[in-house]
């Protein structure tokens, strides 16, 4: 049988020499999941830089209590577009699109996604949608926050708001098409022997994430369609002056946007579950607990949305329901965190850049998780609603969590993606600046919020001035931490040391093929032989020593 396979696939071109690669393919409508993954990663990172630039402008405005750097109207546009870009054009496409596309087929031993062309379509919806969103600055940017609550969103900067709706509808469609692809790929295309309970944990995370995307994103689309009618046609679905109900929008919006938090963090949980065992040289602790807790989080994540609406007239009995559900989410999340800690406990830790970011992820995410339980409590939430405490909480989850995890993923898989090692010294500098800048920027916001500083305002009481200046300085450090990273990427991509097939001695399929993998990933059919996390065993040592066996022709591997 292997002979037949080899004959069928021998024409597939071998991995091109790094450095001689044809870079134009990154701009083409390719169906190769690896290139699409890199397209997602680079595109979303560009948007991350844009979003970061907007954040720097926001913090510059907030360096002083007066509205002196930009006008209030521009300020509203800045934070609205900052949040929209970071959520819909950076974290969601990077966590699901980039790593999902690049890693899933490799991890399960498939040659591509189930629907490669659909995959390319989903990617190519993102650049125009992003360009559309940024173009809104020329017409008056959307200025009602990324939540776009009516009636405010129906009253200010209508053109920008319409562009915002259009852009989000495109991005949502892209996300749904991607989820269809991930789900079918994971369920149907696994290598022989790889049962669901043997899948690497990132696959479990993507399964749970894709289910969430499929269930929640369409409801946001529904809300946006109705909002668009209110805005452009003049209906009154959400407009109280015409008999509509703005709270219905909030329900529909948060029915997506709370699960969106998990859409942005579950894939990163998956990345961390892959990275920690490799750099600790230990089996993952609690495989099934980590795998199934993703589903617990997904399910619970769908029935907690109104905790964003405790101050929107939600009746007290309903608040109790959502408060308790929200707090229960801490249980499956805690299971993951303790499993990760148990994984690295007593391991032979290698403090690579990837590992630093992964451990940074765990510690920072826990802070965001704990403040999450705090704001789940109704009485506390009513006190801190729409204050900087919320801003601090969400950035610890989304930056300290998702972004740290995405950086860990980039450092870990960069050698596989581009066939070059990244520079560790620059990586460590990046981590240190990132860690200090991040905490300096966001830790003081907890205190600001508790003292009553409102979010989404360009001016504030002078008594908050000192801490705000600290936040702004932290932001500048955070922004500057990107410079060593960018230098590292550009330098490593072009001139870096050539990466071996398995630089971290990993056990998943992607490390058993060349760096970068050939066009169809493997020259032989991968068959599940050794668990993804069985570090420390004799079989693991043999498998790692064997080199890129999956990229060798069958005759060669049989000796």
């Amino acid at each position: 049988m292997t002979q037949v396979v080899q004959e069928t696939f021998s024409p597939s071109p071998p991995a091109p020499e790094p450095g001689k690669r044809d870079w134009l393919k990154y701009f083409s409508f390719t169906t190769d999941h690896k290139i699409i993954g890199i397209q997602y990663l680079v595109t979303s990172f560009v948007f991350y830089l844009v979003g970061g630039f907007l954040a720097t402008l926001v913090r510059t405005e907030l360096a002083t209590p007066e509205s002196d750097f930009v006008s209030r109207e521009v300020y509203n546009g800045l934070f609205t577009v900052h949040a929209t870009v970071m959520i819909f054009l950076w974290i969601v496409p990077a966590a699901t699109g980039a790593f999902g596309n690049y890693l899933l087929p490799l991890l399960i031993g498939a040659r591509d996604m189930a629907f490669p062309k659909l995959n390319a379509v989903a990617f190519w919806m993102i650049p125009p949608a992003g360009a559309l969103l940024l173009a809104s600055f020329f017409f008056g940017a959307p200025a009602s926050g990324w939540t776009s609550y009516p009636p405010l969103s129906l009253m200010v900067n209508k053109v920008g708001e319409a562009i915002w709706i259009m852009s989000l509808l495109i991005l949502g469609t892209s996300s749904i098409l991607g989820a269809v692809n991930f789900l079918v790929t994971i369920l149907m295309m696994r290598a022989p022997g790889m049962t669901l309970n043997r899948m690497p944990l990132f696959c479990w995370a993507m399964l749970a994430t894709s289910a969430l995307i499929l269930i929640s994103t369409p409801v946001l689309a529904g809300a946006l369609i109705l909002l668009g009618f209110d805005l452009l046609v003049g209906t009154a679905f959400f407009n109280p002056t015409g008999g509509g109900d703005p709270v219905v929008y909030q329900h529909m919006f948060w029915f997506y946007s709370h699960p969106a938090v998990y859409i942005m963090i579950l894939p990163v949980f998956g990345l961390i579950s892959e990275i920690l065992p490799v750099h600790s040289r230990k089996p993952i602790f609690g495989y099934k607990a980590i795998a199934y807790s993703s589903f617990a989080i997904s399910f619970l994540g769908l029935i907690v949305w109104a905790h964003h609406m405790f101050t929107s007239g939600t009746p007290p009995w309903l608040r109790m329901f959502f408060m308790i559900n929200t707090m229960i989410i801490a249980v499956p999340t805690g299971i993951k965190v303790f499993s990760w800690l148990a994984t690295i406990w007593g391991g032979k830790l290698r403090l690579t850049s990837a590992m630093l970011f992964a451990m940074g992820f765990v510690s920072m995410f826990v802070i965001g998780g704990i403040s999450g339980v705090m704001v789940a409590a109704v009485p506390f939430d009513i006190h801190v609603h729409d204050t900087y405490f919320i801003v601090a909480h969400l950035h610890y989850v989304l930056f300290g969590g998702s972004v740290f995890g995405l950086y860990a993923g980039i450092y870990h898989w960069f050698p596989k993606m581009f066939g070059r090692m990244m520079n560790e010294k620059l990586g460590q500098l990046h981590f240190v600046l990132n860690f200090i800048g991040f905490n300096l920027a966001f830790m003081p916001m907890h205190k600001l919020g508790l003292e009553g500083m409102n979010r989404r305002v360009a001016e504030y009481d002078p008594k908050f001035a000192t801490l705000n200046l600290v936040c702004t300085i932290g932001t500048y450090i955070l922004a500057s931490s990107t410079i060593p990273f960018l230098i590292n990427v550009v330098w490593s991509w072009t001139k870096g040391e050539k990466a071996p097939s398995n630089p971290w001695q990993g056990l998943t399929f992607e490390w058993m093929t060349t760096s970068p993998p050939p066009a169809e990933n493997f020259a032989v059919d991968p068959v599940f032989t050794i668990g993804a996390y069985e570090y420390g065993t004799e079989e693991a040592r043999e498998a790692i020593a064997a080199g890129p066996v999956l990229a060798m022709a069958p005759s060669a591997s049989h000796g």
Partner: protein
Amino acid sequence: MQGSTVDSSQPIVDFHHTSGVDHGHHGHPDHRIMGIIVFLVAEAMIFLGLFMAYLTFRAVAPTWPPEGTPRLELLLPGINTVILIASSFVIHNGDTAIKKNDVAGLQKWFGITAAMGAIFLVGQLYEYFHLEFGLKSNLFASTFYVLTGFHGLHVLFGLLLILGVLWRSRKAGHYSSTQHFGIEAAEIYWHFVDVVWIVLFFLLYILG
């Protein structure tokens, strides 16, 4: 679009087939039907979201439908409902026919389905033009038009799929008992649109 999807997924399908490890019992292992079904989950959720919005508007409003809303005529939409439900059975005959390699039968049943779908759409438009309220009359009117309109767009898309199948079936050998993904996809989609209409009819016309 559909044709191109076929081509792109072909190598993978072949690969799995050659390796002979999975789908061994199935003549044509491809995952497109599953992809359609998974996609329809998302479609169902957008309708569910809109239905829940409607139910919430209805529950929160002091009177529903708002005062001054004329009652909806039931005769024409009732006939339309019967036609659409019946068409789901008709289209299934087409699927049965192609599984017996009967292309003429497929064309007959899909042709009838297309005609029924077109009648439904024309009936819908006729109703729109004779209603006493417009899109912006009140909250009920707005939800009525957006829900039926959004469903109508889905009927239109399903109709286009069916017409696409009919167009392609002119070429001999394009569809056969072993190769009929497009037919199955159109049928599944048509059933979905049908089920959505039943819920919608209940919510808007019966429940009011």
